């Protein structure tokens, strides 16, 4: 019983780290631009397909795909901002929201058209390897995913907290007009927020592929949890996304350990609802 609990917690922490990094990108976009990017999961899907192609046809280590997908997603994010979001900055929020939703549907169906609906899989030599820590064993592929996620989360946190760019992004998030008066190019900050937020997924995609399967709707699977994590942690807060991700990961993993089937998916949302009832602004609202 205790063993199962420990195993569940370990799995939860590892999965939660991945939720956290996906949520961090999303919260950065929301925090700075106040736009909910429904297409966030689809960028993850793009990164995963790039990884699949490189691993299957280039016979390369899937992790090398990080070198390709991070810059590519950065450019895609910047492009999406310039072409689709910037013209809508003055429009009502609902228009911006619907635009990102449209991008999401477009990307999913493009992927369906190009790759068909079959779930694709990449097998690496270390797919079945695992690490034992006492009574708990964790798959190597998931440990790598968790480690990469943590690096990115801390990287974004460091960026926001210590660098000038980070300060400018936070300023644009806090008060758009005041930031402009201070000489910050707010529109460029928006573009950078989206581009950086989306390029985080360029790290997540390659580390997810060895243990998850790639299909056009894989983004949607992770997007919902990412949204819940962002709101739980406080929209705009990186530390909130980090801790929120870990909490949701552990709750979901432990509850699936002890509750049958779909019931096991309920507790994480119950926790979410309860937390919001008592702290509607989220865990770390207002802080990066």
């Amino acid at each position, binding site marked *: 019983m205790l063993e199962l609990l420990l195993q569940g917690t370990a799995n939860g922490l590892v999965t939660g780290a991945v939720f956290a990094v996906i949520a961090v990108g999303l919260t950065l976009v929301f925090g700075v631009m106040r736009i909910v990017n429904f297409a966030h999961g689809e960028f993850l899907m793009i990164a995963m397909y790039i990884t699949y192609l490189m691993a299957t046809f280039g016979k390369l280590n899937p992790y090398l795909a990080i070198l390709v997908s991070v810059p590519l997603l950065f450019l895609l994010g910047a492009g999406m901002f310039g072409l689709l979001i910037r013209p809508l900055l003055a429009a009502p929020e609902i228009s911006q929201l619907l635009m990102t939703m449209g991008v999401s549907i477009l990307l999913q169906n493009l992927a369906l058209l190009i790759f068909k609906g079959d779930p694709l899989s990449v097998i690496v030599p270390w*797919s079945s390897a695992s690490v034992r820590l006492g009574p708990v064993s964790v798959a190597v592929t998931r440990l790598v995913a968790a480690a990469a996620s943590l690096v990115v989360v801390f990287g974004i946190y460091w960026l926001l907290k210590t660098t000038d760019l980070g300060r400018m992004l936070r300023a644009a998030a806090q008060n758009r007009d005041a930031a402009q008066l201070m000489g910050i190019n707010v529109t460029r900050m928006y573009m950078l927020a989206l581009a950086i937020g989306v390029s985080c997924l360029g790290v997540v995609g390659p580390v997810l592929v060895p243990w998850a399967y790639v299909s056009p709707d894989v983004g949607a699977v992770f997007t919902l949890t990412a949204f819940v994590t962002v709101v739980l942690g406080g929209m705009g807060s990186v530390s909130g996304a980090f801790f929120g991700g870990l909490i949701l990961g552990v709750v979901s993993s432990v509850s699936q350990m002890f509750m*049958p089937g779909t019931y096991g998916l309920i507790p994480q949302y119950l926790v979410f609802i309860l937390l919001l009832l008592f702290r509607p602004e989220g865990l770390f609202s207002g802080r990066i």
Partner: protein
Amino acid sequence: MFTWPRIWLERQSPVSPVRRFVVAAAVASLALQPALVAAADVVIGALLPMTGGNAPNGAQKKTGYELAVEEINAQGGIKALGGAKLKLVVRDHEGKPDIGARLADAVINDDKVSIVVGSYMSGVTVPVSRVTERLKTPFLVTDSMADEITEAGLKYLFRIDTKAELATRAMLEGVKAFGQKAGTPITKIALLNEDSAFGQSLKADFEKQAPGLGLTIVENLSFKTGSPDLSAQAARIKASGAQWTVGSWYITDMLTMVKTFPSQGLNISRVSTFGGGVQTPALLQAGDQAEGVTGFTMWNPDLNRPGVKAFAEKFKQKLGVDPNQNGVKAYAGIWILKEVLERAGSLDKDKLRETLAKIEITSGPAMILPTSKISFDATGQLLPTHIAIQVQKGAFRTVWPDDVASTPLDMTKIKQGMVVR
């Protein structure tokens, strides 16, 4: 109040009576023409998962249907209907029950199909069957195992796929046989079922039948198909002391298990399911890691059935991969429908239903199914046979029952027991 038509009262037509008669006769014969000239197509509606996690098996079925339709049309169509050609309309239900129900309605009312086939997922077949019954349209279930499908008293539903209670019995007997061969009698099993109509049906049947076969269920788990994370289930099975794991899942779950179970210390060759959840070419892409995986199904290309080689080759040419049981049942299903259409000689849905209910087929391409006679019982169920397959050297081989096995069961991985660490 009746009055004579004015034209009849007032004046004669300027055209002579003979001419009028000839024109009237010509018009009348034109109205009768359609019955004598080339007959309209027979439209068959297929509801399949063409997108989503089960797309590979949707593609298998579509290819099976299309192959049969092409062959039948090339041979002259349905002779009893004046050479009418078969036309297949495929609609994608995406694996979602509500979409399936809506499409059933659309395909019958808009596409005007005479017969519905499908749908690969019990969770979708159940609501579809309610619609086809309400609209009095024959529904030939070529793939969906849940017991409730033929237990709902539906008159227009017929199934050539196996029934969960029969398949689960075969699985448990097969697992016991594997244990005998490995020299370790199986007494403790773990159940792992996905939680839609498919999994729920199998779960209930496993629970009912295991005690009668001397098997104790030491762990009983369910999960949502498509979950990217099955490590909780793996940990529980490992801790339970089970010697074999049986259950129900779809291909994406099998891929997840092949990747994650070994790293959790579970022997994947002792984790078996039925049908497309294991017998899908996508599993073979896992290479060495899929070697030794066992599962159960109704058909495999290496079975000694008439016409198998020719069928398998044509199928592989069309889809690019070998046919599995889903592709074969789709193919056989359409050939069965051809017989039905020939014997009914009409597109009247009630006539088709009657013909399906009484039909007996013992020859022809439909006999690619491993059974001695194709006929349906009072609930619309065909009596199926089952086999076990194993991944050996990158291909699915039939390993049980012994009288149809093409190669013996490979013990390399199995003999390591359920827990390998």
